[in-house]
């Protein structure tokens, strides 16, 4: 495992140690990027330093997976100088979310490599649901199959927000793509813009106002991205409620669900809201590029999201071992 910080740094040695203990527990060996502990504004070192770690460890033949320690901000700054040929020549696992979306989509699209939208290294052991999907996606050569919900923890007083709200009924099948909406919006109009043609597209964000999510959804709508898609999965979007951002509050806000119904309710593809993706403690690991299907109907058990194809193979293509 190669541990890198292409976005923001983690300055808590205890957290890092805990993450490393988890890797050992899984029987995995690791290396750290040389610049892991550097800092530049809110980024983990200069663009050049973060790039150097990324390229060095990606080229390293001993490394099977490149695991960003955390997201934050800064990964998209690296894109113009990333060596996509080097990545294509040495296929490896890359797993993260949030700001790491800025690497997952460009790398998947420009090299064809399956990349993984799942926990960053520091979060992969957060709970049983998260951990089980992490292992299913990264340490298995079988398809993940039907995606389940987190188990009820039995707390009678717990707040049971419906985990899956159907915005549009329908059936769709296609390869998976998606990630953090803020990052996807930031790639629009660039050579790394998300390709939604015939895809099941998943989107999520955290602590954004409904109107900010609306802005990003509107951009994708105007760009025709949803006309091309086969299905849309909106994540739980933790904290995306009026006042949630604590910075851009507009008066007369209304809820994310209302906004999604207004903006996406007319689509002729399945649209579901509330899956545990990205910025929630329960977190799926979703491979970009594999076949999946989505079926939504308004009945109680009417959402079926199935990942039909394995994301990993036993041997890297071209490997002599």
């Amino acid at each position, binding site marked *: 495992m190669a541990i890198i910080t292409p976005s923001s740094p983690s300055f808590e040695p205890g957290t890092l140690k805990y993450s490393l203990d988890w890797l050992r527990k899984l029987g995995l060996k690791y290396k750290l990027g040389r610049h892991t502990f550097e800092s*530049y*504004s809110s980024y983990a070192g200069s663009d050049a330093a973060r790039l150097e770690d990324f390229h060095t460890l990606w080229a390293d033949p001993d490394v099977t997976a490149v695991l960003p320690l955390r997201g934050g*901000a800064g990964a998209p*700054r690296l894109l113009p100088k990333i060596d996509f040929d080097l990545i294509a020549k040495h296929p490896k696992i890359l797993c993260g979310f949030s700001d790491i979306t800025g690497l997952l989509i460009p790398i998947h699209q420009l090299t064809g490599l399956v990349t993984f939208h799942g926990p960053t290294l520091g979060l992969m052991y957060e709970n049983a649901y998260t951990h089980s999907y992490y292992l299913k996606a990264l340490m298995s050569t079988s398809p993940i199959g039907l995606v389940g919900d987190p188990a009820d923890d039995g707390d009678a007083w717990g707040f049971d927000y419906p985990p899956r709200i159907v915005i549009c009924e329908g059936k769709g099948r296609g390869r998976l793509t998606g990630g953090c909406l803020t990052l996807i919006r930031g790639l629009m109009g*660039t050579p790394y813009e998300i390709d939604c043609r015939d895809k099941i597209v998943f989107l999520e964000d955290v602590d954004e106002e409904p109107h*900010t999510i609306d802005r990003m959804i509107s951009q994708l709508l105007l760009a025709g991205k949803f006309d091309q898609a086969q299905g849309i999965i909106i994540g739980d979007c933790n904290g995306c409620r009026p006042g949630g951002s604590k*910075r*851009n509050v507009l*008066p*007369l806000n209304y809820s994310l669900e209302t906004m999604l119904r207004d903006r996406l309710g007319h689509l002729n593809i399945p649209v579901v809201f509330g899956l545990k993706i990205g910025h929630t403690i329960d977190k799926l690991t979703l491979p970009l590029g594999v076949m999946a299907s989505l079926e939504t109907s308004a009945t109680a058990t009417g959402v079926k999201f199935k990942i039909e194809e394995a994301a990993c193979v036993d041997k890297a293509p071209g490997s002599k071992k």
Partner: protein
Amino acid sequence: MIKPRALKSKDRVAIVAPSSRPAKPSVLARARRIVHDMGFEPVVGKNVLSTRGYMAGSDEQRLSDFAQALSDPSIHAVWALTGGFGAMHLLDKLPYETFKANPKIVLGCDDFSHVLLALHQKTGVVTLNAPNLDRIETRDIFERVKKALTTTDHLHELVHRDNFLDDFAYAPVEGFGKGKIIAANLTALVSLFGTPFEPDLEGSVLLLEDRSERNDILDRWLTTLYISGKLSHVTAVGFGQFENCDSRGAFNMLSFEELAADRLCPMKLPCCFDLPFGQSPSTFVVPIGVTGVLDTAKGKLTFNESAWG
């Protein structure tokens, strides 16, 4: 490029709210009075005080007011009352052909920046970046906008004025940029990327402003501009007012000046900061689509032609 005609006394000016609702009715009453005192006849959209979520009414209500104002030949200018969010919902439904055939002055800023950029991109008509009616709060800005709406001369140049030093501008890359002026709210500009309304930045002098954002979020959107490759075709960048934009208490976060300059300096792209361009009453007005020259060393933007016919 198509230039609308300058306003004359008694012309009818529509007050519209295609984004959010004004904070209170007095904002609307005040806006009417401002338009009236400039010598024009205010015409208020039917739905400006309607409400739906964060917007001034449903998409249909906002579109009906705004499209009516753009199409009605008896209306000579259309001025946004306030910003917020919502204009994007209307972009694919605006009467572009009618507007192009009967162009008129359209002005505002903030969320209305989406509209100014889209109208210019789709029709070639010059649009005007100026404060929304709810920010006309000083005699200076009142007179500046009134003059700008009625003159057939070149609009007033923009010069950075330091509070104390007479002749100072912060220009990480000194130089000149000449070309078509695109003045934009940074968030709005990036929101149009990848859509049919994305402005053509080829050969442009690009002016950017924003309000109430954290430095790293501004850096996100500047990064989009950078990785799109479009900055290489821009002749100069003038950063304007970034009202209430800061690090929000994160002590180790660099300034937007530094985060922007670390990409623009290696590109040797002429740029300067603190041009009097933004949403506040201290801003100057900027026509989108006319040619001009930005001298970054002096922090000065001059216009090579008039904005109106």
